[in-house]
């Protein structure tokens, strides 16, 4: 049947008509009129003239050109196998721990699409709060100057050949030494023991910034060579003898938050901080009482305190005002008893012994001071290091392994170390960069960045903090513990090594099954039980020598104190442009170190005391013995006359080492400057080793330096050039704790120290039947706009900043910088007042003058204003974080011609970059001057090539993908981290629950170690920020301008001693 089936498309086909057959035989059934067309003589006559031809050609060329003009396509490739936990656009957080030999803090690392982009404190399961150095360290991960492979004799090599070379190097005869910073890692300690056992390598610890005077004092007094664990949270009275415990000294990441807990006026009690120091430190700027002393007097201040408290020792000679402060401090300490705490920052054995005796006299050991046998920070042994250097120079060292430190830069006698290093048979460094030390070593075995590898760390006897990788290693690097194991002949990968440290029975099969471990990694620590410790017992060591030593100290015309700045610290991150550009909280100076001097001294020497855009600093020559260096002089209010201060951590990379592009000075065009020999010019000068080594302890003070004017000048880039707030108490409000207590219960707006500002109106407001000066209307009640309901409608984001808690540490500045892709603009632009920080911290000094005094003393108004610009000689200081105030009546919004800045219905003043045409009118009309303009194309212009992360192919990976990188010519400013609030709203919406207080938080509030910044929904009656609006300390800055900000400040309360 099937065979017979015939298909046909028409009856003609079925019938095979002749007509059909004819058509079928032709390819084109209908006739093509081609001949006709070609034969048409009109065609021959048709004139496709030159003009038409040109038109057509022009069109075609233009069309083709335009079609070719396509913006470059950046392809993103989706995951073939999507990792379970990574969703593009959704951030992941990993608990980890930061330790750089100094700061030790539990953190959460935020990653996006596998890239770590932000570091914040792990407040849930961890201790300590990140500071600027910690949260900016994420930038270092992407530094393209990092070593990208192991090196041998300056050539890149492979790990097996490096390992072979090291193993060979370790066979030499002589001392074989592993030189590290303080090792806090149990796994590292295990690897060190393995290496000790297999190759006879000795372990020497040496800290970049030595604390050995403290640890030696503890050994003398308690037989334990440890750095005490200070419990600032338990202290009622703290006396700091040049110990900047809020900024750089000791375990500051832990102290800061603890201390702030004792500083809440609402609690009805506040701790009191007395500071004795020569230069103005962050701690001194936050002290309730600050006394100016010279470095040579610090020991005597300690001795006088001791004598006041326990009657021990002979009377010492001190200035009258200093003695009065000592007595006041002693009285407070005695009152606090065991809840008193004295800390000293000088690395001076005698002072530390006396301070230890004071704390003992207070019975503070056990309450505010804990002395754990193990573990301890700052285990560096300077004497062992000095011995090592002399052995190296004597040719007795066969092999030197350096990990975690950079002695060629920071050793007290770096020249001797370098000379010795040349005589060492074989040397290897595990540094991330070919830094001063590593570049001098035979081999370089680069370590992972802390965000790339596994590690464990221990600072608390009860827990092991874990470090977990947040990204695959970017380069061919290896964890130092892994390297040591390899050199010990027991190669193991870092992870296995770590697991085996905590569970000897660990095998790869058990990788995921150990629930204890999994919880540990999730929380960032493993709980461990430790045997009961015996309490520390005083050895009865004699103090007489120390007391005699300090009593005999004499200073020269000038004394020097070397200190550390909050952002740069010991200089490890000198190549981090964000830290270089973070203004010092005290001097507000970026990108340099300098000599801080008292104004009177500078005037006597004829140096420039007004440093601004076109007023460069005068350069002075500082001579200490045979060493001399030249640095610009900075007039520092509060600096003790006859003393100078210079920051450590500068002058990195003096030998052209590859430690990061941003570590070197650039010219105005953006190219690196070079000296006569073609070497790059480091930023600032290195002052490690300027102070003498006393009794084997590298001191940080010099009692006799000479300072000479050189007549040269040098520009400094300061973000703030006006030092006082000119008596404008609607900008800053402050009071004393006693005055606060007197009116603690009054309603907001009524207290004498925080009165609502009223403006006179021609209306009988108070109802006394008369219109006069008493008729005042609160500034917030004036309104020329149509009423927009803001209270109770949807969200209304707001912020409250407690000036009492804010210590000015600048962690918020760097956090904001990283979160919001704020460009780094470099020194020259900062000098021109074009820093881009969305969040800045205004630092105001108190002046000795005000209008009342001017009037009382008959000084004219103009002269009084002039005098008010000058800070007092030992001024009180206010740190005031300042960012967009998100005014409900924003002056910026009305003046924008194109409505690029508008108010959101959530109370946020928002900036539409795409719409901005860059008239800058909004910035002019901003009373707080918080708006930042993109003066150049920061991500592309040559001037910024050597420091703006957005210009580095690798470093730009740190940019937050949730925040756009702004183009040239547009205005930008604080958005209250709108990307975060939107994210939190989305999460709440997905979960179908109301937004929880605290789920949306800005980067600055999150970073604040003292919880000075509160962010939340003002329309949420249960929110913390709403509660602050009822606090009687709350005020709005510049309230009388009528701008009604959504950011509020809480009056600063100082616990000043009664005069």
């Amino acid at each position, binding site marked *: 049947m099937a065979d017979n089936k015939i298909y046909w498309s028409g009856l003609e086909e079925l019938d095979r008509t002749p007509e059909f057959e004819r058509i079928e035989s032709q390819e084109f059934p209908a006739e093509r009129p081609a001949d006709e067309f070609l034969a048409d003589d009109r065609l021959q006559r048709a004139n496709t003239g030159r003009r038409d031809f040109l038109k057509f050609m022009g069109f075609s060329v233009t069309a083709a050109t335009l079609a070719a003009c396509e913006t470059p396509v950046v392809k993103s490739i989706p995951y073939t196998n999507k990792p379970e936990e990574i969703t593009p656009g959704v951030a992941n957080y990993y608990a980890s721990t930061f330790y750089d030999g100094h700061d030790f803090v539990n953190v959460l690392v935020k990653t996006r699409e596998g890239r770590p982009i932000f570091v914040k404190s792990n407040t849930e399961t961890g201790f300590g709060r990140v500071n600027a150095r910690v949260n900016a360290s994420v930038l270092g991960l992407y530094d393209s100057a990092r070593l990208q492979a192991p090196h041998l004799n300056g050539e890149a090599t492979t790990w097996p050949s490096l390992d072979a070379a090291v193993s060979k190097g370790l066979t030499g005869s002589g001392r074989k030494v592993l030189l590290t910073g303080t090792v806090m890692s149990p796994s590292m300690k295990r690897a060190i023991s393995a290496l000790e056992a297999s190759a006879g390598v000795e372990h020497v610890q040496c800290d970049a910034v030595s604390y050995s005077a403290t640890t030696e004092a503890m050994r003398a007094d308690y037989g334990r060579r440890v750095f005490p664990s200070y419990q600032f949270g338990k202290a009622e009275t703290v006396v700091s003898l040049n110990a900047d415990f809020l900024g750089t000294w000791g375990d500051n990441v832990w102290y800061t938050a603890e201390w702030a807990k004792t500083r809440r006026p609402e609690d009805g009690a506040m701790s009191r901080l007395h500071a004795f120091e020569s230069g103005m430190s962050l701690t001194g700027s936050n002290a309730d009482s600050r006394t100016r002393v010279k470095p040579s007097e610090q020991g005597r201040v300690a001795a006088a305190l001791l004598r006041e408290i326990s009657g021990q020792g002979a009377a010492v000679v001190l200035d009258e005002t200093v003695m009065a402060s000592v007595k006041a401090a002693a009285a407070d300490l005695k009152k606090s008893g065991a809840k008193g705490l004295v800390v000293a920052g000088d690395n001076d054995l005698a002072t530390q012994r006396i301070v230890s005796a004071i704390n003992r006299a207070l019975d503070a050991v056990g309450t505010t001071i804990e002395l754990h046998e193990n573990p301890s920070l700052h285990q560096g042994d300077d004497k062992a290091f000095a011995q090592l250097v002399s052995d190296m120079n004597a040719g007795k060292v066969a092999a030197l392994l350096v990990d975690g430190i950079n002695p060629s830069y920071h050793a007290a006698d770096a020249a001797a170390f370098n000379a010795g290093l040349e005589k060492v048979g074989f040397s290897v460094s595990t540094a991330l960069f070919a830094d001063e030390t590593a570049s001098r070593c035979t081999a370089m075995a680069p370590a992972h960045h802390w965000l790339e590898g596994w590690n464990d760390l221990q600072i608390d006897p009860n827990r092991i903090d874990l470090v977990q990788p947040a990204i695959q290693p970017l380069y061919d690097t290896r964890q130092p513990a892994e390297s040591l194991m390899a050199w010990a002949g027991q190669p193991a990968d870092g992870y296995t090594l770590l697991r085996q440290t905590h569970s000897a029975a660990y095998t790869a099969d058990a990788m995921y099954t150990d629930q204890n471990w999994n919880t540990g990694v999730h929380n960032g620590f493993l709980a461990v039980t430790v045997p009961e410790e015996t309490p520390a017992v005083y050895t009865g060591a004699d103090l007489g020598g120390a007391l005699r030593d300090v009593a005999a100290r004499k200073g020269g015309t000038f004394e020097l104190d070397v200190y550390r700045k909050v952002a740069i610290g010991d200089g490890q991150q000198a190549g981090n442009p964000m830290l270089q550009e973070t203004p010092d909280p005290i001097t507000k100076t970026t990108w340099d170190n300098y000599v801080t001097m008292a104004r009177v001294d500078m005037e006597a020497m004829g140096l420039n005391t007004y440093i601004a855009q076109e007023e460069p600093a005068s350069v002075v020559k500082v001579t200490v013995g045979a060493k001399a260096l030249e640095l610009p002089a900075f007039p520092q209010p509060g600096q003790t006359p006859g003393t100078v201060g210079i920051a450590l951590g500068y002058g990195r990379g003096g030998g052209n080492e590859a430690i990061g592009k941003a570590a070197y000075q650039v010219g105005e065009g953006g190219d690196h400057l070079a000296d006569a020999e073609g070497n790059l010019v480091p930023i600032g000068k290195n002052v490690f080793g300027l102070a003498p080594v006393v009794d084997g302890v590298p001191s940080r003070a010099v009692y006799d330096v000479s300072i000479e004017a050189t007549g040269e000048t040098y520009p400094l880039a300061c973000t703030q*050039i006006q030092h006082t707030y000119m008596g404008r108490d609607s900008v800053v409000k402050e009071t004393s704790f006693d005055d606060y207590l007197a009116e603690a219960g009054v309603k907001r707006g009524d207290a004498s120290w925080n009165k609502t500002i009223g403006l006179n109106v021609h209306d009988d407001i108070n109802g006394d039947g008369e219109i006069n000066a008493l008729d005042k209307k609160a500034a917030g009640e004036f309104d020329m706009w149509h009423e927009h309901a803001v209270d109770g409608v949807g969200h209304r984001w707001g912020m409250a900043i407690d000036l009492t808690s804010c210590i000015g540490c600048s962690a918020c500045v760097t956090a904001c910088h990283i979160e919001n892709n704020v460009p780094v603009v470099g020194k020259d632009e900062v000098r021109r007042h074009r820093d881009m920080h969305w969040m800045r911290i205004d630092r105001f000094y108190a002046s000795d003058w005000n209008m009342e005094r001017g009037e009382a003393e008959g000084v004219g108004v103009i002269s009084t204003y002039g005098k008010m610009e000058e800070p007092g000689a030992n001024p009180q200081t206010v740190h005031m974080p300042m960012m967009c105030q998100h005014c409900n009546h924003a002056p910026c919004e009305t003046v924008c011609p194109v409505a690029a800045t508008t108010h959101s219905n959530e109370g946020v003043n928002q900036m539409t970059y795409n719409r901005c045409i860059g008239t800058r009118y909004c910035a002019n009309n901003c*009373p707080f001057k918080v708006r930042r303009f993109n003066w150049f194309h920061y991500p592309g212009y040559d001037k910024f090539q050597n420091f703006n992360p957005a210009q580095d192919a690798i470093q730009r990976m740190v940019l937050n993908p949730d925040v756009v990188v702004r183009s040239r010519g547009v205005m930008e400013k604080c958005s209250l981290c709108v990307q975060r609030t939107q994210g939190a709203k989305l999460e709440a919406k997905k979960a179908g629950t109301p937004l929880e207080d605290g789920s949306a938080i800005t980067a600055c509030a999150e970073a604040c170690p003292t919880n000075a910044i509160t962010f939340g929904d003002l329309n949420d009656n249960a929110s913390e920020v709403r509660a602050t609006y009822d606090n009687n300390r709350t005020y709005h800055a510049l309230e009388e301008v009528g701008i009604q900000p959504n950011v509020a400040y809480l009056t600063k309360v100082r616990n000043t001693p009664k005069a």
Partner: protein
Amino acid sequence: MQQEAAIREPLILGNKSYKDITDDVVGPIQGKAPLGWKIMITISSVIAFYGVGCILYLIGTGIGVWGLNKTVGWAWDITNFVWWVGIGHAGTLISAVLLLFRQKWRMAINRSAEAMTIFAVIMAAVFPGIHMGRIWVSYWVLPLPNQFGSLWVNFNSPLLWDVFAISTYFSVSLVFWYIGLIPDFATIRDRMTKPLQKKIYGFLSFGWSGRAKHWTRFEEVSLVLAGIATPLVFSVHSIVSMDFATSVIPGWHTTIFPPYFVSGAVFSGFAMVQTLLLIMRKTMNLENYIHTKHVEYMNIVIIVTGSIVGVAYLTELFISWYSGVEYESYAFINRFSGPYSMSYWIMMTCNVVSPQLFWFKKIRRSLVATFALSIVVNIGMWFERYVIIVTSLHRDFDPSSWGEFHATSIDVGVFVGTLGIFFTLFLLFARFFPVLALNELKTILKSSGEEHKRIQSDGKSNH
């Protein structure tokens, strides 16, 4: 024909006839360019090109090439803008207001004063454009229907008012000026012998035939335009002043600004007219048309407006003290005693003290003194805007942001460049356009020309 009081000085000197006027005005256009003109235009166009280079560098690199910063967001740019707009006030005032008041002496100066206005407004318009961070989207300030979404301009913003004010002023001034030029172009056309020139001037004169109907319409249009232009003279600078007056910045937030700015503008505008005309009358032999009488009249305007400006300065100072607002009083104390006090005292000397010299008749009628003082006044008026803008911004509410402004070479280059462009345009005008409203001038020849008065009194006429 109205009669002149016998004691009045004649407006046109030198026994001119109608033909003389035509010859004096059209002659230079027909003749070869004099050497002096060639030298001047070379210098000014070199400066103009330098300025254009600076502007291109600015646009190519970013606003950062200027000395502005986070505290001082406007400085030379807006100073120059207001200065040029101010200068652009005199022309329209002379042609429109004085036309309405039937001030016949204006006829000798209105043409070039108006040209000056046009060119000054063009220079002024350069600055709001180039001061923008993204000049390539500057058209967003125009309320154009668009497809960016429902985006519209912000009518609350004084900058937007500026856009309307300046563009209206410019277009009305331009039309007014051009209408006046039409009969004069026709005269030139009629005298030109070379075909190309004839064609060009023929085109420019829009087929003017000199018929009575044309003249009637001409008169009517002039009057109507004068009526439109007069309020603009006052509105433009009032609105420019609102850029400052409506802000919250101490030193800007001042209700006195509109009248103060308008009188300042007239003040500087007349000074610039003096500067230009005193050169022009000399180099183009127009001494008979623009003479001491004109100069003196303009100097009187300068005394009046200068005194108003002076009173405004003092009022500001008084109010800042009287208000009791600490920011306000500090802003003014800082003006005269702070880091920029030099600018303040230059302003005070040039604008308040120097014009008072014109109370002396000898100085008022001295061409050399007038020339010198006219330049002094314009320097003073530049500093007035600089003082208002920079000293108010550099220290406002929050002392932590107090800063400094320092001009860069590009700031200077752009400003000097606009001077170059302005003078280039003016020189081109002087060479190719009728610098005097010759047909209008002819209407006053019989009432004020010396020769004509003589002939009239003799009862004879030479026509």
